[in-house]
Structure formats: C-alpha cells, structure tokens
C-alpha cells in the first residue's frame, strides 16, 4: 500500500518537500510507515513520531486508505 505522509518544519527541509509517499506491506501500520519514513533521509531520526488523523499514534495503529498521516518533528511551541 502507498501511504502519503505530511511532513513539517525541519523534516520538510530534510526531505525537500512537505509530503512524501512510502510503500508498506498490507495491512499498513504506523510502525511500518515510521520505518519507511526514517529510511528516506539520514537527517530523520530512526523512529520519528507519527500522527494519524491528527492524533499521536503508536506502532500498532492500522492505516486505512483516506487516513491523514503525518510525521511530527520535535515540537517547539511556546
């Protein structure tokens, strides 16, 4: 399954884009997407934080077509 992931801030700079598409085995999970995203650039950490449908998600969360998936750099608000 192809999963398109939104990318922000320093990770967007590292990838040179604000979206990236990765291919993972079916059924897709956050854990598989996380590993695939990390492999896109040595500037990304080995286990970047993932959000699905605007919520932080753990490795076991399934990803379905239409879900909004994002990779979240370390936050720095405030």
């Amino acid at each position: 399954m192809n999963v398109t992931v939104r990318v922000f801030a320093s990770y967007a700079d590292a990838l040179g884009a604000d979206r990236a598409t990765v291919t993972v085995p079916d059924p897709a999970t956050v854990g598989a997407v996380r590993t695939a995203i990390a492999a896109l650039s040595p500037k990304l950490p080995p286990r970047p934080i993932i959000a699905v449908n605007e919520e932080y998600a753990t490795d076991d969360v399934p990803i379905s077509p239409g879900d909004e998936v994002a990779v979240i750099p370390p936050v720095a608000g405030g």
Partner: protein
Amino acid sequence: MSRSGIVAAPIDVAAITDEVRDPHTGAVATFLGTVRDSSDSRTVTGLEYSAYTGMAEREMQAIVREAIAIAPGVRIVAVHRVGNLAVGEVCVMIAAAHAHRGPAFDACRYAIEEIKKRVPIWKREHYSDGSSEWVNACAPDAHAPHPEDAHA
C-alpha cells in the same frame, strides 16, 4: 466559554484577560510567552512559528478540556500564534479564571506545560548573522511527545 486556537494575528492580551474575567471568579492567572532576543547566546532577530494547524487545534482543545477536568469551573482561553514574530511579541497566552487562586494557577500552568510538550508547532529562529535554525531539531527524540502519554 473556554476556548483555544492557533492564530495568525497578534494576540490581544487585554482582550483575552477580560474574556475570562467574570463577577463570580475572583482569581485570574495568566501566562504569556514572548520572543526573546537571544538563544544559546546567539542574537535572535525574529521567530517563525509554523503549525500542523488542524492537529494543533485539536491538541489545544484537548489540553483545555484536561485543564477544566483538573480545575472544575475554570474559565480558560489558550491561544498560540503562528507566522513571523518580532522580538518581544507574544507567541502564546493562557488566561485562567476561577473562584479560587489555586485552581486558576493550576489550570494555567498545566496548559502551558502541555502546550510545550504536545502541540505540533515548530519554531525557526532567525539570527543576526542572517542564518536561521529550527529549534529542537538537532535532538529529534529528546523533546518529542510520547504518543502513549499524549492523553494521560
């Protein structure tokens, strides 16, 4: 009347303070985060905040709900600004009003701590030498929220 938001316009401190004030609530605690002129001894000329807006607004709303659970009856407003900010400008504000000062302080403090931990907002500092950097970006795991704890 509690609310939260990610805003592009300057934060009106007086208006938000007045928004939570009420004849029944004798205590108002507020917190302002403002842009500092230095960071790790480098001179900062300005900041740029960007957000994953939809998720940031959801997290802010969740934090406000949690603050109300901690301090029942609190009236709380929490806003975070995005875009380009000059030194001295307000980047985040929380105002919490309650009948008693303990819960007002507790709600205010909880909200800013959680905002800094969980809300997907990023900050790029611009320096006097013309360079710029994403804050925290060099230590990718150190400050990341733990998804398992995000709603604890």
